């Protein structure tokens, strides 16, 4: 989660200083900021020893496949089939939370689930943390494509893009943590509670999908009773994303740590078959 911390610090600094690059530098600067999640992840996973180096190629494969899947299927699905821009931004709060969870959130969760479930050979996965590594790699691939799409199509300022990059990375990491727990249960739990992977995937979709309206709502809300006029404070949304990520991390770390009793080393076959 070191990458998320660095991205949060970057968003804090750029937004705090209201950094806006000159027009000539905006495109390359934005592209660099959009590439940061992938760069941080690459540096962290490729230069770090231990179990991450064993899964180097599987994790990189997950990131590439999820990125391609996101570009070829997920983004067209969200933009052209669900058309979320036409009906969700103006809908009421409950519809927005439900709508984003069912469209963007579910697409993200299922993309991570299917890539890690069917693209990583089962023999590569020997412990629960392996699934977290692969899911986080898949989430990084997804984030990379979405933030590049955002940077190229909307032309935001550097500070706005940094905030968006952090929010996206935090939401997708929440998805990765929850989906990796579900996959670990699927692979390693001897007496699997049948609907558990489905419920966990639905929870991942809800956490990620509901973050979209809540982050934007908090970023534009006035929290002052003396001046109840909406104001733009994007960092409020980022603090929410950070809190959500930490909460998911703590809860699922606790669940994973207590899941060892019923685990079996290899109850499942090759996921790629």
């Amino acid at each position, binding site marked *: 989660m070191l990458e998320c911390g660095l991205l949060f610090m970057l968003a804090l600094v750029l937004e705090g200083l209201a950094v806006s690059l000159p027009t000539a530098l905006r495109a390359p600067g934005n592209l660099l900021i959009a590439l940061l999640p992938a760069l941080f992840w690459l540096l962290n996973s490729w230069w770090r020893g231990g179990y991450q180096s064993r899964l180097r190629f599987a994790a990189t494969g997950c990131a590439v496949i999820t990125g391609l899947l996101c570009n070829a299927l997920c983004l067209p699905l969200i933009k052209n089939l669900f*058309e979320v821009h036409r009906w969700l931004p*103006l809908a009421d709060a409950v519809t927005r939370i439900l709508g984003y969870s*069912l469209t963007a959130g*579910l697409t993200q969760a299922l993309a991570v689930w299917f890539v890690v479930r069917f693209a990583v050979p089962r023999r590569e996965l020997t412990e629960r943390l392996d699934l977290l590594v692969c899911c986080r790699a898949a989430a990084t691939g997804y984030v990379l494509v979405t933030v590049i799409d955002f940077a190229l199509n909307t032309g935001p300022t550097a500070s706005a893009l940094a905030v968006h990059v952090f929010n996206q990375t935090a939401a997708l990491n929440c998805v990765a943590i929850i989906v990796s727990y579900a996959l670990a249960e*699927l692979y390693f739990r001897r007496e*699997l509670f*049948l609907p*558990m992977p489905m419920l966990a995937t639905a929870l991942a979709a809800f956490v990620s999908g509901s973050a979209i309206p809540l982050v934007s709502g908090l970023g534009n809300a006035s929290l002052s009773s003396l001046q109840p006029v909406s104001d733009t404070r994007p960092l409020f949304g980022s603090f929410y994303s950070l809190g959500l990520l930490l909460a998911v991390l703590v809860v699922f770390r606790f669940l994973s740590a207590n899941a060892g009793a019923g685990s079996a080393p*290899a109850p499942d076959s*090759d996921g790629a078959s």
Partner: protein
Amino acid sequence: MALPERFPVVRPPGPRQRWANLLVVLLGLVGLFFSLFLRDQVLGATIRYSNLQAGINANFPPDWLLEEAGSDFVFRIRDTAAPDFPTTLQVSLFPVGSDSAPRNIFDALTLQRSQTLAAYSVGNAQSYLLPDGIETSALSYTYVTTAENPFLGSRPVIVEGLDVLVFERDQALVITYRASAENFGRELQHLNRFMQSLDF
């Protein structure tokens, strides 16, 4: 000899793993259909408009702007969020004689609009099938407009329009649909829904 832990023995998936996988696929399918259903519910939501004086009832999208009793219309609704030009549905009433033909109404409208709208160009008169199966007349046209706020400095927009004419006793009801040329075909669904709900 036991294989090293790096390459654990691969055994067929248990029935629970298979079913758990299928349930995740099922979740995806249910989510897909429910989100499409939710989208259609939100996009197709309407509120009822009633004008007792003119005897007109119709449904229109809740986020469209309603204006009543303009100089040349009974009421009109506009999608101010539409890009380039607000998609407009407008209802006007004209008193007519017993021997009036659609051509008379269309000629009057053309004469009036050609003096007020830039590059006004009449298309062709065509037949239009009302939701209750009755065939009536319609006239298509185009003109050019710019943003109402001159400080926005936007470029001129080509607007396409369609007038649907309905005779009812001694009155002619003209339903006008306007949208930017780019959105005309896509937004035509609003006219169709409006016509289905129109009660005159």
